[in-house]
């Protein structure tokens, strides 16, 4: 055994204690989030009992919704997605597909499937975007508009959609997202009951291996592919546990870019989506909330668990890694831009709870995990840390992580019961246990890589997402 100087021994022991305190603090906050999420789910499931959603269908007060779906090389899934959007049960609906300079047959597919006729592109360019080439209107579905524009990225595409949209509310989705037929009716509720709501988000679920027919998810299955299965657990944890809990603890800072509803005037007022940010969805929410605090205008952001949208998650390691890397770069970027919120009492719960959480937990957790692991190995090798204590502590951390996943599955089972077969429910448990062996470590690596790339200011674009298309 190498003799370690007392000073180093002290440093290593201090780091060990700091790591233990960090893990305990984070996990205690998770318990708080769980309590908040549990009470929210309980309330939502009581509110949803015998709810008569169809009333909104016949009401002339139901606000018009413009759905904005940017599409970049989405020829495999765009037809099913647009069909799904057109079949939504919502009375005043406008569907806007923004073809963001696709190099594949996305536009040709849309033209062939939906009988598009050109319309002179006249609109109020309230937010500047890359040039719009053509505007099309479907002759078969007159509420379907297709914008054909130069490639400018997702945020630019959404901004072009905001310029053309006429709805009071805009729903931003990914072109490969399948929205459940009644999801919009559910998502619009907070806007109808609270005049101060500017944004609302729904739950995203994993569609891989479930069958999709005529733009609707029919046979819901838990994927047997491990990568898709692990992501399913992550999505359950993030939406049912995280975002729902944040409704009570200071409000959400993220509404998923794959399915969110916004007041169009509020989004335009803050200048739309930021084109130079990789985390444009989070940036928009931060901007809306900060602007609300500053101006005294409405700025409430709600997460509603029962409107569901389905998305295909990547099952190739490289693509998944790039996605996570991009998400973390986006997080770092937004947190840096809005650094003035940190512990700023002017922004109340946003500045005092939500923002610090995202910095201290979401942003730096991969660093703490890696540093903690390296120190533990070094400490054990040098005899500073007791090997048995180290192993037990590691075990405790994993067991706790598993508990959080199981809680999310349990909340889902109590409130929503999306998976009907017992076999599928058991697969959920299998993926919750198995994700701790390899997958979690990989996500830590990807997030750390994202952070490093952010600090080195590496330029990476949308990132290619090769889609298989939905199984029918």
């Amino acid at each position, binding site marked *: 055994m190498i003799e370690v100087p007392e000073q180093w021994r002290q440093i290593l022991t201090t780091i060990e204690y700091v790591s*233990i305190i960090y893990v305990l603090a984070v996990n205690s906050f998770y318990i708080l989030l769980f309590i908040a999420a549990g009470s929210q789910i309980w309330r939502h499931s009581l509110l949803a009992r*015998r709810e008569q959603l169809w009333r909104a269908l016949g009401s002339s007060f139901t606000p018009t919704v413009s759905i904005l779906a940017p599409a970049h090389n989405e020829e495999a899934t765009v037809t099913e997605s647009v069909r799904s959007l057109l079949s939504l049960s919502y009375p005043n609906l406008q569907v806007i597909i923004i073809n963001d300079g696709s190099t594949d047959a996305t536009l040709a597919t849309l033209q062939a499937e939906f009988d598009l006729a*050109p*319309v002179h592109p006249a609109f*109020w360019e309230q937010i500047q975007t890359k040039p719009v080439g053509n505007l099309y*209107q479907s002759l078969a579905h007159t509420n379907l508009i297709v914008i054909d524009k130069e490639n400018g990225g997702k945020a630019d595409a959404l901004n072009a959609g905001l310029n053309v949209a006429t709805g009071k509310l805009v729903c931003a989705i990914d072109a490969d997202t399948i929205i459940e037929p009644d999801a919009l009716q559910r998502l619009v509720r907070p806007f109808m009951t609270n005049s101060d709501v500017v944004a609302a988000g729904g739950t995203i679920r994993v569609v891989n291996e479930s069958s999709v027919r005529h733009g609707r998810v029919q046979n819901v299955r838990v994927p047997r592919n491990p990568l898709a299965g692990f992501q399913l657990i992550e999505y359950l944890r993030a939406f049912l546990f995280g975002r729902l809990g944040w409704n009570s603890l200071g409000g959400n800072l993220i509404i998923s870019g794959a399915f969110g509803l916004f007041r169009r005037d509020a989004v335009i007022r803050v200048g739309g989506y930021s084109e130079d940010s990789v985390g444009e969805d989070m940036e928009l929410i931060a901007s809306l909330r900060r602007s609300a605090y500053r101006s005294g205008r409405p700025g409430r952001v709600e997460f509603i668990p029962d409107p569901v949208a389905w998305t295909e998650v990547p099952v190739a390691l490289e693509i998944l890694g790039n996605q996570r890397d991009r998400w973390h770069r986006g997080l770092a970027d937004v947190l840096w831009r809005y650094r003035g919120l940190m512990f700023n009492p002017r922004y109340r719960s946003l500045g005092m709870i939500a923002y610090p959480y995202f910095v201290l937990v979401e942003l730096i957790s991969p660093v703490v995990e890696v540093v903690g692991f390296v120190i533990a190995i070094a400490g054990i090798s040098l005899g500073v840390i007791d090997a048995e204590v180290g192993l037990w502590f590691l*075990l405790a951390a994993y067991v706790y992580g598993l508990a959080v996943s*199981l809680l999310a599955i349990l909340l889902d089972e109590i409130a929503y019961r999306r998976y009907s077969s017992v076999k599928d429910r*058991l697969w959920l448990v299998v993926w919750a246990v198995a994700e701790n062996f390899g997958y979690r470590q990989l996500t830590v690596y990807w997030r750390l890589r994202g952070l490093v790339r952010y600090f080195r200011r590496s330029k990476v674009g949308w990132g290619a997402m090769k889609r298989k298309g939905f199984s029918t």
Partner: protein
Amino acid sequence: MEVPYIKLLVGVIALLPGGLLVAYLAIVFQRALWLRWDRGNLEWARAAMLDVATGEALSTSNKRRLSALSPSVQARLFNEFAAIFAGPQSEILRVLAEDIGLTQHLKQRCKSWFWWRRLVAVRTLTLLSTGLGSVEPLLDDRNSQVRYQAIEWAGGTGSEAIASTLIDRLYHGDPFCRYALEDSLTRMGKVASTPLKARLEEKHEDDQALVAMLEVAVRIAGPEYEQIARSLVSHRSPEVRDLCAELLARLGGDDAANTLIEMLDDESSRVASSAARSLGRLKHWPASTRLADLLDDPRWTVRNEAALALANVGAPGILMLQQKARTDDAGGSVSKFALDILANRPGVSAAA
């Protein structure tokens, strides 16, 4: 930290996922068994209800079996059926609900201490279009969701006294229930018209209360509101003037059209656009020249609405649009857009 303490900590923490796993599996299997047990009961009850709703009499034994089901299963069944049946079938369901004691049970539930019980009770009573005498107190419920649902229920009652209560609530502002209040009053239609007119004729300090009431008046659109709309076209709030333009468009007539033409000069782009849109909706072709002037308005929304209104007006408007579309200025651009939109309308043969 000592090893035994860590072991104890891990042990305590490990109990959590262990307990959760057991709870999860118990729920999964209990649900699977319950579903199997419940399916038979529900299938029988659905078949019986379907027979009743289609006019067949329910035998005494079947009625007894239906009464024996738990109130929550009964409520679930009536919710399923009441949502899809209308007219005489709804009446049959309502009578059946009375007969098996469900209505009485729900009325009792309206007094429950738990808000979710009151909520489900009002929801079912709303579907069954019954509950007079029990639901009215819930219009003032301390829980906003229950209040919201009671207001929805009120929309189906056709009582002028309840309409007056709702208008008072709208006037004094209940931000959570504004949508439900407006929707219910609109569904009440003529019943709500007289008390609404009386309220609109009062002097208003609060613009938002006036806006909320005008929104309902626009949907009811009775001729009794014409005088009120014309008296409010010079109101200080653009939102009020905008709604007046919409109301005048729904009422129609030469006087309304002339007022709308005057409103095209409003300083607010919102009001001028609304007036243009309203004239297009009225297909008031004598306004074509004034609308064509607005194609050069510096405000985009006004230009765009003027172009779309001209496309709606008919031949004179389309001619003016075609003339303007030959230019390359901003007015030409919106004219081309309006002509393309017109050409894409079903049943229109390439008007442009």
